[in-house]
């Protein structure tokens, strides 16, 4: 190993500018004894250009054949020259290049290292990341060279980190200390592994102290990332709970209907999103990335219409009998589920994220915020503001509040209470549809989508206090964050059970939720 290393460094020293792959190089990499091939490979990598990388890739994929001293890259049923790219006819007696395990490992290494010199920033960044995950001392010379050549600051910083990770195992104590200093500044989970590994093999006491200090520093930085990550996923879960519970806060909180079909109204919203997606794929494939914008109003309308139909046909006969609404809406939910099964099949359907929602923002080394979660948080805030405005500022909201507080008086003032009931229920259902549209971006869309959320949604509304939008917000966020923190501590299922237990205990203390309706009723 070390002989080859020295040789590699030597080569680096004498290496000039990157040049194109030559026929001789290709030949010596592909043909001959393993030792010679590796030497040729190492030499080629140092000055690798894209053709070299492609050739090494082809070798690693077993797509190279040789005949005599001619080299062919096989592409499907054709063959091309690795140097010129010209089409060649593959002779019948061409032989496969046999790569033993040693050669194979060397090819992989070379490939990763060669990508450090790619012209594409993203490929270089990805390559640094791969190398960081398993730092390998042998790559130090190549990394040094790439570090010197790198111009993009972010990648250069990462390369510096990688260099530190490799240097930390150096024989030279000063270099080690220097590397430790660099590493301490980083908050990458991979550096922690590197530091820990070194700490075990470090003979000198003062370097050990420095290592420990660096580890503590990295740990502190990582702890921040972990905490912020838990808060973020808590907020993300909370925003989903909020979306799910907002509609229920209207139908249950304001209207007193225990809508067990709320989950199925969400399911309708999610399936509406799926239908819109299908339509876009079929008729507007070019605009596919924007299908979600069309799906938002469609899912709202679909659920709102179903909700209005339910209110007109069933629920209006059951006002004031909450337990009966529970049974009837349960029946409705069963029928809606079966209806979706008959229409779309019992399997989950695939709803895809648009391109602009995939990926995420890297905030800290161990904390990245996915775009789809961010979009849903923003969406939840927007829906919340919309509902708040609708209930608090519009004529419809005024009527809804009036009918909720005193139906006979509202009726005497000329409010068409029956129509207001329908509008309010349709609004609540429509919001459920919006929740379904959002859920389709983070979870499975299937006939029992609603069942998974209905208990949670009721918990949020009950915890927040019936009829209180602000309470719903606090309860959703509180439960979301509490759930995520407990999850880190006890695991997902136990966290859920703990949250349910917490709610039961909380309701002991405040039977009316966080914000109780104030009143003088003896029944309260």
């Amino acid at each position, binding site marked *: 190993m070390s002989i080859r290393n020295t040789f590699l460094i030597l080569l680096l020293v004498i290496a000039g500018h990157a040049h194109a792959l030559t026929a001789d190089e290709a030949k010596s990499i592909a043909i001959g004894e393993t030792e010679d091939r590796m030497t040729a490979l190492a030499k080629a990598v140092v000055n690798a250009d894209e053709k070299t990388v492609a050739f090494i890739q082809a070798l690693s994929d077993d797509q190279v054949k040789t005949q005599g001293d001619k080299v062919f890259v096989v592409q499907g049923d054709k063959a091309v020259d690795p140097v010129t790219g010209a089409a060649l006819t593959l002779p019948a007696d061409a032989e496969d290049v046999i790569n033993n395990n040693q050669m194979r490992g060397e090819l992989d290494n070379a490939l990763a290292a060669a990508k450090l010199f790619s012209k594409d920033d993203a490929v270089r960044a990805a390559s640094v990341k791969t190398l960081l995950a398993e730092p390998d001392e042998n790559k130090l010379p190549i990394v040094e060279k790439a570090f010197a050549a790198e111009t993009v600051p972010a990648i250069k910083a990462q390369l510096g980190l990688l260099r530190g990770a490799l240097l930390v195992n150096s024989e030279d104590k000063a270099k080690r200390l220097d590397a430790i200093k660099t590493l301490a500044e980083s908050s990458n989970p991979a550096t922690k592994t590197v530091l820990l590994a070194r700490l075990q093999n470090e003979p000198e006491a003062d370097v050990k102290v420095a290592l420990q200090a660096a580890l503590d520093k990295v740990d502190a930085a990582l702890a921040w990332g972990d905490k912020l990550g838990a808060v973020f996923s808590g907020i993300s879960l909370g925003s989903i709970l909020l979306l799910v519970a907002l509609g229920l806060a209207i139908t249950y909180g304001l209207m007193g209907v225990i809508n067990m079909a709320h989950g199925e109204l969400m399911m309708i919203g999610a399936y509406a999103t799926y239908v819109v997606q299908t339509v876009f794929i079929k008729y507007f494939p070019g605009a596919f990335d924007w299908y979600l914008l069309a799906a938002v109003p469609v899912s709202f309308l679909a659920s709102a219409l179903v909700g209005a139909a339910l209110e007109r046909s069933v629920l209006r006969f059951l006002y004031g009998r909450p337990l*009966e609404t529970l049974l009837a809406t349960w029946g409705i939910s069963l029928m809606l589920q*079966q209806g979706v099964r008959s229409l779309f099949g019992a399997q989950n359907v695939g709803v895809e994220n648009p391109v602009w929602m995939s990926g995420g923002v890297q905030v800290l080394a161990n904390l990245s915020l996915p775009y789809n979660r961010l979009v849903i948080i923003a969406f939840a805030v927007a829906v919340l503001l919309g509902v708040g405005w609708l209930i608090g500022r519009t004529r419809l909201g005024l009527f809804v509040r009036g009918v909720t507080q005193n139906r006979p008086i509202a009726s005497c003032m000329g409010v068409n209470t029956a129509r207001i009931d329908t509008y309010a229920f349709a609004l609540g259902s429509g919001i459920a549809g919006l929740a379904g549209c959002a859920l389709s971006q983070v979870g499975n869309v299937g006939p029992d989508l609603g069942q998974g959320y209905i208990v949670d949604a009721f918990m949020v509304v009950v915890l927040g206090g019936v009829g209180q939008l602000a309470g719903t917000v606090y309860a959703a966020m509180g439960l979301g964050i509490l759930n995520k923190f407990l999850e880190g501590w006890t695991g997902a299922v136990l966290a859920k059970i703990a949250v349910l237990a917490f709610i*039961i205990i909380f309701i002991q203390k405040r*039977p009316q939720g966080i914000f109780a309706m104030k009143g003088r009723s003896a029944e309260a």
Partner: protein
Amino acid sequence: MPTVSLPPKGPLLTRTGWSSFFVALIVVCAVVPVLNLWIPAGSPFHMSDYAIALVGKIMCYAIAALAMDLIWGYTGILSLGHGLFFALGGYAMGMYLMRQIGRDGNYKSDLPDFMVFLDWKELPWHWMLSGSFTATLFLVVLVPGIVAGIFGFFAFRSRIKGVYFSIITQAMTFAAMLLFFRNETGFGGNNGFTDFKRILGMPMATTSMRMTLFVITGLVLLGFFLFAKWLVGSKYGRVLQAIRDAETRVMFSGYSPLGYKLSIWVISAVMCGVAGALYVTQVGIINPSEMSPANSIEIAIWAAVGGRATLIGPILGAFIVNGAKSWLTVAYPEFWLYFLGALFIAVTLFLPDGVVGLVKKLKGGRA
């Protein structure tokens, strides 16, 4: 102090009531066993083992519906968590039956198969009593009773009622379901318990054992029916109904509803637990899905379909809904949920007093 004179207390059952009760008794104890055991299989009067198993299962459901009626129909507290008590009774019995398998399991070990699979070396502490049948009988009653007692004490003490109570009971059974789905809780994870072989050392798969269990279930159902009849006719039962109709007034009259609500809640849970234990012996499987919120709601549905605040109603309801279910799921598997859903809506909209209410109405308003 002026005394309110209550109407004189009637007999437990009327003459027709007793005659129908004895008819039911004879059917359960004599007619069904004869039809199943002694009439040859080809005869049209032969009751198949499938029918026996089905009726036996529905009788267990009927007990659960009766228990639900005591708490919901007579006390006005809708529980959406009765599936939990049903399952707890079932699990208590299931643990005993698992131990009865002995070394006949797949792994030929003293431990139940799933524990061997999880590489456990000894029984967890909560399986200690499961070896004894007597202890199991106590557990079937005590476990649901104690769980209900603790939960009910906290819930009723802070005067949680109505919809809040329903939703919290739903959360309770949901939480328990998640817990029982876990492997490390020691209840067989999502497979639950199955493959039972013996009860009291006797093989369970024989026709005569099936018939014995069937008769026991029928007798328990009839016994609970008489007990419930006696209970709701007593002064205690009248207070319950008063709490249902106007709890505040009951409080203002000097009663504390807490004791009444808590005791009927525990009684109802215990009945449900017994139903669950009998169910396991007949069906031969118990798993956490029995605790799903949907199952608990279905129990309420049986009571509502038959007619709340009547005792025969929930029993009828359990038979109607489950009979329809087992027929429709075979004949029209696609339509079963449509039918069930439509049934709920129709009952709440058109039959607020259930089937019994409809019969009464047809008979000419005799209440």
